[in-house]
């Protein structure tokens, strides 16, 4: 049953991809963003402060309540190397709000190959909205807890496809640690004006061949349609419907079957393009994504509780305020119905970016002919 569902999903995905090759009028995918690149002969110093607070009040079997509060600072130099190559170098700092905590410092070091419509990043990734993955694939708190990643990313944004695909290496294999990485991406193919075909995939792996430890493979895929009509009355309202499939393998004692599936629907109503009212509906059967919002999973937070058939609904309100000079404030209130349980959550974020242009004079050749 599970295998045939995945097979049907893959086949449909292939058909839809081929059929949309000649699709017209692209709708830019909100989640996919090409990072701004420095012009020829320039050095751009990019900085951003982020102040975040996220509180979820879950008292149910699938997800436990959690509060994330702190400040982040990102600072790196974007240097022009050639017409198609840039280098990023700097650091990322995270300070969780508490009296006795260690400040987390991570390097930013990336090789960026870019054209007008695509970007290949090797090194430090700066994912935008979790690479565009929906909540059952990657939980939204990863935007706060994992704002930078390390690996490879390909972002394509042209008239045919909007794509954000990546490989994120989380842990290197050592004598005591297993290797951990996740991979996948999201894509949008404009079919006709206002209608897009969407495909998503997320894989998570724990393993490593040189020890006899745990090997875990989790894969979640999704295919959907998005309706973004841009009608005068509805503003930037939209409707997304996804069919999802999951495969969980190699977990000793896993209480459910290997394959699972689900139906995800999200409606966004934003008549004035400022206030955003959204609703999510989910029907799942044995669905499991290791990095997804566990409210969508069939496996409970304790790793033992299991419920094959799942329902989840969410209603929310969001406002993204552009204050001044690029300073923005984002707040979100949500109400959740997890089967028979009800919970509320909210998020606050303030972003303060500032870029500084630095004049770089290339050193002329000396008498020894060196550069």
């Amino acid at each position, binding site marked *: 049953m599970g295998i045939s569902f995945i097979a049907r999903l893959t086949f449909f995905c292939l058909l839809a991809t081929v059929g949309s090759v000649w699709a017209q009028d692209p709708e830019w995918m909100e989640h996919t963003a090409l990072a701004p690149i420095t012009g020829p002969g320039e050095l751009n110093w990019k900085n951003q402060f982020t102040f975040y607070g996220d509180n979820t009040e879950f008292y149910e079997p699938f997800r436990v309540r959690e509060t994330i509060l702190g400040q982040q600072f990102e600072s790196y130099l974007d240097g022009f190397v050639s017409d198609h190559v840039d280098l990023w170098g700097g650091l990322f700092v995270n300070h969780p709000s*508490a009296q006795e905590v260690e400040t987390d410092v991570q390097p930013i070091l990336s090789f960026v190959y870019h054209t007008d419509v695509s970007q290949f990043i090797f090194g430090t990734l700066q994912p935008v909205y979790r690479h565009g993955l929906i909540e059952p694939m990657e939980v939204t708190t990863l935007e706060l807890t994992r704002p930078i990643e390390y690996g490879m990313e390909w972002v394509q944004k042209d008239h045919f496809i909007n794509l954000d695909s990546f490989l994120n290496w989380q842990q290197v294999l050592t004598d005591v640690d297993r290797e951990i990485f996740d991979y996948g991406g999201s894509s949008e193919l404009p079919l006709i004006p206002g209608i897009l075909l969407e495909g998503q995939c997320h894989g998570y792996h724990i393993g490593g061949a040189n020890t006899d430890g745990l090997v875990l493979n989790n894969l979640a895929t999704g295919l959907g349609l998005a309706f973004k009509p841009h009608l005068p009355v509805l503003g930037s309202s939209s409707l997304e419907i996804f069919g999802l499939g999951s495969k969980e393998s190699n977990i000793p004692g896993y209480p459910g079957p290997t394959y699972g599936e689900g139906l995800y629907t999200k409606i966004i109503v934003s008549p004035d393009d400022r206030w955003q009212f959204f609703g999510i509906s989910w029907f799942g059967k044995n669905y499991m994504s290791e990095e997804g919002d566990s409210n969508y999973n069939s496996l409970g937070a304790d790793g033992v509780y299991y419920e094959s058939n799942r329902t989840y609904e969410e209603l929310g309100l969001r406002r993204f305020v552009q204050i001044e000079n690029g300073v923005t404030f984002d707040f979100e209130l949500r109400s959740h119905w997890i089967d028979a349980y009800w919970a509320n959550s909210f998020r606050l974020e303030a972003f303060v970016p500032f870029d500084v242009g630095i004049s770089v004079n290339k050193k002329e050749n000396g008498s020894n002919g060196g550069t």
Partner: protein
Amino acid sequence: MKKKISLFFILIAAGCWGFMNLALADNVTFQNNLTFYGDEEGFNGPFRSEETLFGQQIKSSLVALTGERTRIDAGFFMDHTSGWDDYLDLKPILSFAYFTPTTRLIFGTLETQDRHGFLEPLEVTTLEITRPVEYGVQWKEMDGWFQTDSFLNWQQLNTPGYPEIFDYGGTGQFPLSGNFTTDFQFHGYHQGGKLFYVGVVNNYAFALGGRFHEDMGFLGPASISTYGLLSGNLQGPFLQVTDAQWGWGIYLRGSVSPGNIAELYGILWKGWNFFSWEGDANYNSQGLDPGFYQSDRTYEEMGLRKFIVGQGEDSLDAQVWCSWIDNYLDFSGRLLARISFGLDVPVKEKGNPNGY
């Protein structure tokens, strides 16, 4: 510890260097606040023990206006307790503020002057010295008809073996006339967390009252304030001793300043099963020893305070007081010197033909 300090300085160096070149900032100030403190609490009763605090603190940060309504503050705070072997406490300062002429919304490092305006039974005065830096969110309003300082202060993250700890609440004042103000206060304290379950504490304390002040000729500026307080200790370790979850108290404070030389003040307190986790323990019914509990409580305090204001925010605060904790008599004193200075940082916007 070394790792923590080195990481910390990377943060500060990067943040400060960034501000020195902040292209968006119209105005950057290098703000420094130094505090020299000495505090001796000479208590030997069952509710609070003797404590001496002695040291120096510095808060140094770059304050940059990022527009007409937003501001960012980045730097560090350092506390050195006087002593040869005591360690140096370093904390980052990183806050974002949205402000109007009467409102301030703060995200990150909070403003903690005068413990947000709390009475002693809600927050003990030594927190001004032991916790001058708090992290969370804050709303400060300074309207003519309403003033508030409301906050959420996150103290500890929920990790294996440790509960999450935070306190929250605020104070609000409604001036009814030129010399009479009504005052509402609320303070909550929580320990818990579901990620790693280690037990739950929930404590609440409310106060409602008013303050009247008047210039009384040779007695100088005088004031009298009275409050009714309520506490709820709904979950926590002390409930094994008593089943009194709710308590209350009456707080009276009067002061005169003869000849404007110094403030002479007195506090009267009568409490019944009152308990505030972060309040001055001399007002609580729960003793230091978890097994000691006294339902009916009295506390009196009489003190003399001299507050000298210098240029800007510079001040010298000297205070001595004696306390009657039920039948115990104790003496305490405090000396606080605060010096503040700001330096304008010249920021030149770089001429850039590409618009960066």
